[in-house]
């Protein structure tokens, strides 16, 4: 069954859709086609796209369809948040299209319904490798950003517990270790995302960095961040101070009140092991790292006025078996006890409908060049080879 040709036939018969012989997902695609037809500004050429680019308005009707992230906002929204392969895809296709999927819709519905005077709720997205946890998180963050929230996004917590070339002993507390490079890089990206808030929020305490450098009470947070970016040595402490300020001031009743979304990808890194070593070759525990210590404090639900969205990630995790993907396996005892109570949101591989959508998108972008991949047989082969796992499918299609 040649789906593009089928769609052309549908366009001629606008309202009357006859049920054709075919699988149920084709019929779903047809109903989506009818829905898309009725939308006046709808896409002229696709059933897998939706023109609804506002995540707040996404509903189950849009499930399985791609929406476009506006390129102008992309740099500010996600300076460091998107997966690397997706960034390459954006560059290649010249557009950032994200599929609307059920886990993200569920998460957004929780965010819409939650009461923000109560302590912050914790959500953990979990699932097998390559199923779309990070993408769902980014979708939810786009929603938060369009609603005017402040987004605190740690793109990969695993980066903070491994491959750190410079480990300085902390200036403020003995026994802790600073990571100046990681901290300053993260502060730079944080500034790009949340610039407009930084001038409005004021510090509540005086911070002393060195003998000559202090940040007085009542100064805008932007100054604090600049201090961290400029003076790399104290950047880890700046991060700690920033987190503390945001925790105290999120969701306040004042007019400058903002809602805070804390998004941590790969949260299981905070309670795992590190591969960093101290000078006497003993292993560094995660709680000895300033960044990790402060982030753990952020993830407790003792503040209100926001939400904590996290993802578990096995790729990048240290000393964990490859088959581990459930929350308790990856978080460990300590992590589970700290994150408890949380709302687990499972993310699974593509359904049939989502797979169809993805396939049509690649065809539309002329990404599948191999002649056999454009046939029904080729599609069945793709289903078999990738088992509908999004990342494996993407890698397969990249080679075709």
């Amino acid at each position, binding site marked *: 069954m040649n789906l593009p040709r089928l769609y052309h036939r549908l366009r001629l018969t606008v309202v009357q859709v006859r049920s054709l012989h075919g699988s149920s997902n084709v019929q779903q695609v047809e109903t989506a086609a009818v829905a898309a037809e009725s939308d006046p500004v709808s896409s002229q050429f696709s059933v897998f796209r939706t023109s609804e680019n506002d995540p707040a308005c996404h509903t189950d009707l849009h499930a399985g369809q791609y929406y476009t992230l506006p390129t102008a906002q992309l740099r500010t929204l996600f300076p460091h948040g998107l997966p690397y392969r997706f960034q390459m895809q954006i560059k290649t296709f010249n557009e950032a299209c994200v599929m609307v999927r059920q886990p993200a819709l569920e998460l957004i519905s929780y965010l819409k319904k939650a009461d923000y005077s109560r*302590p912050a*709720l914790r959500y953990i997205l979990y699932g097998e490798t390559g199923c779309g946890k990070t993408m769902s998180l980014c979708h939810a963050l786009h929603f938060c950003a369009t609603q005017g929230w402040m987004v605190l996004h740690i793109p990969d917590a695993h980066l903070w517990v491994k491959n750190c070339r410079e480990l300085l002993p902390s200036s403020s507390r003995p026994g802790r270790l600073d990571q100046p490079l990681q901290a300053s890089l993260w502060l730079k990206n944080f500034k790009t995302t949340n610039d407009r808030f930084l001038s409005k929020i004021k510090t509540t305490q005086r911070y002393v960095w060195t003998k000559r450098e202090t940040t007085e009470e009542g100064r805008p947070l932007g100054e604090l961040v600049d201090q961290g970016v400029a003076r790399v040595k104290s950047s880890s402490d700046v991060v700690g101070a920033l987190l503390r300020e945001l925790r105290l001031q999120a969701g306040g009743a004042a007019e400058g009140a903002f809602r805070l979304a804390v998004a941590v990808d790969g949260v299981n890194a905070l309670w795992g092991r590190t591969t960093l070593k101290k000078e006497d070759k003993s292993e560094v525990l995660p709680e000895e790292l300033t960044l990790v210590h402060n982030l753990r404090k952020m993830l407790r639900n003792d503040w209100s006025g926001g939400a904590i969205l996290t993802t578990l990630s096995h790729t990048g995790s240290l000393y964990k078996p490859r088959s581990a993907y*459930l*929350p308790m*396996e990856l978080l460990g005892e300590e992590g589970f*006890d700290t994150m408890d*109570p949380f709302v687990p949101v499972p993310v699974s591989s593509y359904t049939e409908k989502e797979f169809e959508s993805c396939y049509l998108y690649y065809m539309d972008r002329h990404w599948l060049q191999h002649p056999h991949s454009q046939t029904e047989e080729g599609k069945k082969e793709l289903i078999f080879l990738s088992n509908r796992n999004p990342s494996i499918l993407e890698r397969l299609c990249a080679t075709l």
Partner: protein
Amino acid sequence: MIWRSVDLRRTALRTLLQLQLNMAASTFCPVLLPLSRINCKLNGIYTLILLNKTAAYSTGLSVKKTGAKTGLPQRGGKELRRQIKQVLQPRTERMAVDQDWTAVYPTAASFKADAVPLPVRMGYPVKKGVPPSKKGNLELLKIPNFLHLTPNAIKKQCEALKPFCTEWPAALDSDEKCEKHFPIQVQKKDYVFAGPSLRHPDARIVTLTVKLSSLNLDDHARKKMIKLSGERYNKDTDTLTITADSCPLKQQNHDYAMYMLTVLYHESWKIEAWEKEKTRADMEEYVWEDSPSQKNILETLLRIRPLSEQQEEGEVREELLGREEVQEYKDSVTKLKNEGETEGNMQQYKEAVKKLLSI
């Protein structure tokens, strides 16, 4: 000695017939027959030696000189050739369907392709082919076979052993009754051994199995017993297995195993002074009371609805813990921790959290 050729052939035929009669017992005949046939044509001396040999092995049964012996050699030759051919065929072709198999394989013996009438194939298949057939198959020879242990053979052996056995007590007609009246099972092995001595060294090993549910243990005693037994306890079948092999005699090992069981039982009932220092990490299963999970949930609920002045913390705590959603949450967390994580458990946990935090 000069032998006339006709006489030679006649005597050869005679001995061949003799050989035919002895076919079932001896196995060298098929090998010799072609030899003797060939040698007839050769020098007289060779046949003399051969004939002497065959004469020595034959049992000396009188031969009926029927058929071709007195007649022409050619007609006798055809009949003889047919009979020889029959002898040369594998035994399987002459087996009846209802034969007594225990006579073919009375004891453990290697696989004989000509004696087993099954089209067995064994081995790695040749390229674009099938596994090799049983004829001349070394793989079938290498492996142990149980052709001597067919149900019929075992029945016969049981019948032979019956005069030496006593009756099974009629009252013990089910497994549960056996378990109830004889909870301790002792396994001992006897060996028939031929070596420097007649005693087999493994005959001293005694294994004692008992189900802990049949012992009188309370909760503390049961947990302590399981901890003391360590590897010897099987959680799935709830059996404790004690193997004793340190003494040289079976009876000594049996006594030792019984002694071990007694000691374990009495020790697990005792409560030592240091046992009250048992920590959470020593606990065998997850208990929700006083766990971090309980603390978290209480803190969260208190943050949602902070204490007012009249309420006392203890009371509020009790009231919160008594709520149905908290109980559900407690059940789901206990299930997750004790039974391990599955998708179903996670779903249950998710529902419990959603209800509790009213999402």
